[in-house]
């Protein structure tokens, strides 16, 4: 009897408290009321919830999401796939790079709502049955990182860079990896790792 349970939530005491609070509010000057409205709107934003079905790392997901959710926030906050990192959150650093239908994209600038029935691959989906992807091995081998924060984005981008065939020279690798910033400056290691896989 859900109705009864609901009615106990809103007891007579609650009703008296609430109505006296509203009565007090109605006596307040207009500016304070406007402030209250602003605060209320800020605290209780009316979200638009939409359904979404997609595949992430070959696993099907059917979810209800806030229309504002970016793919990056969907991965990290909703699905706890925290391998994908939030760097700048404005499309300037590449830390959030993932693959969408096998092409590298920025998850921070992608609205999750636009991904109906799409295929997403994140760093968690790169390893195969517990054995690392050759690019992951190469980053270990060639010291392609220092702090490691940009690494998952670098590796996702590097895998795509090799698939795109943009590895014919050091200059070409650098140009086609320029969307991934490494603040520690591990670029030489990253470039060497990519070269070793591209061979």
């Amino acid at each position, binding site marked *: 009897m859900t109705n009864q349970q609901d009615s106990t939530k809103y007891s007579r005491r609650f009703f008296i408290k609430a109505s006296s609070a509203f009565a007090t509010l109605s006596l307040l000057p207009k500016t304070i009321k406007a402030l209250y409205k602003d605060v209320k709107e800020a605290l209780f934003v009316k979200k638009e919830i939409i359904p979404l079905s997609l595949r992430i790392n070959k696993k099907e997901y059917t979810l209800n999401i806030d229309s504002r959710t*970016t793919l990056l926030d969907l991965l990290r906050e909703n699905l706890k796939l925290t391998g994908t990192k939030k760097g700048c*959150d404005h499309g300037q650093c590449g830390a959030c790079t993932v693959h969408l239908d096998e*092409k590298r994209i*920025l998850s921070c*600038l992608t609205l999750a709502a636009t991904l109906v029935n799409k295929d997403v691959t994140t760093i968690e989906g790169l390893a195969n049955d517990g054995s690392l992807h050759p690019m992951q091995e190469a980053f270990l081998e060639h010291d392609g990182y220092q702090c490691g924060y940009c690494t998952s984005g670098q590796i996702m981008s590097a895998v795509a860079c090799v698939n795109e065939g*943009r590895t014919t020279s050091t200059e070409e690798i*650098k140009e086609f990896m320029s*969307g991934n910033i490494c603040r520690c400056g591990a670029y030489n290691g990253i470039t060497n790792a990519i070269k070793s896989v591209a061979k």
Partner: protein
Amino acid sequence: MKPFRYHSPKTVTSAFQIEEEESQYIAGGTNLVDLMKKQIQEPNAIIYVNEALFATIELKKKGVQINAMATNSDVAENNNIKKDYPLIAQAILAGASPQIRNMATTGGNLLQRTRCPYFYDTSLPCNKRKPNSGCGALNGHQRMAGIIGNSTSCVAVHPSDFCVALIALDAKVNITKKDGSQDTIDFKDFHRLPEDQPQKDTNLPEQALITSIFIPRNNFKNNVAYVKIRERDSYAFALVSTAAALELKNGKIKKVRLASGGVAHKPWRWKTSENFLKGRQANRKNFEEAARLAAAETKPLQHNTFKVALLEGAITEALLQSLSNSSKI
């Protein structure tokens, strides 16, 4: 980000049937999602048009049609574009990063907003973001500001590289209006100067959709170059860029196109320089004179006169590079 209703129409007709106040079309989202995060644009509804429009690149008798949802990568990696319109591929590959080029669409590229720092900072005045709030850049930081076509209300520049190549090649923009009728806008008339309405970037009618871009066939493919000068070697917006295309006959210039980015509120064609070069020998002396003629037309601001020198260099360099080859894609 402000909450918004989300629509994903499957046809242009159904896109136009959506009744929403303050709605915004979205395609690749590389610019709009960022603007929404920064609360610079706050639509009540988002209409995702990727499924309503086409993404193919079609060879036609008189040119090539790039449909609006073709991504920057689709265009730059297309064999027909690389072979017959290499200037387009070069310009696209000079912009953004591979990730962004995989997302950003052709239609969206035309409609991206300026990267003027005053437009991006909501605590500062900007007539483009908030009409009648003033122009912070007019007496402020002018490194990214224009040197030609500025007004007293706005000195912002259009940030696209792709559009510089499109205006150089006399492209046309095919649109569908809200009433369902179709129209074509010459690329040179698509973007506008700020004048006293900098909030308007383009002459695209309200709620109209760009459906495709058409580039007429040309004989420039062997002699084109795109030169981009920026703060770092890659993944930065242009301080000044120049697209050059030549059609040569016996060492003389039969046809020439010169356009620049990073200099004005719209991609800019240098007609005086083109007229000067036409019929002349293709050599450094004439190229330098063409660059001087372009520079003479500029009206830089107090703090960006250095961009005039960059422009002269970019024009000369682009013309020289266009002589040597066009295979640098």
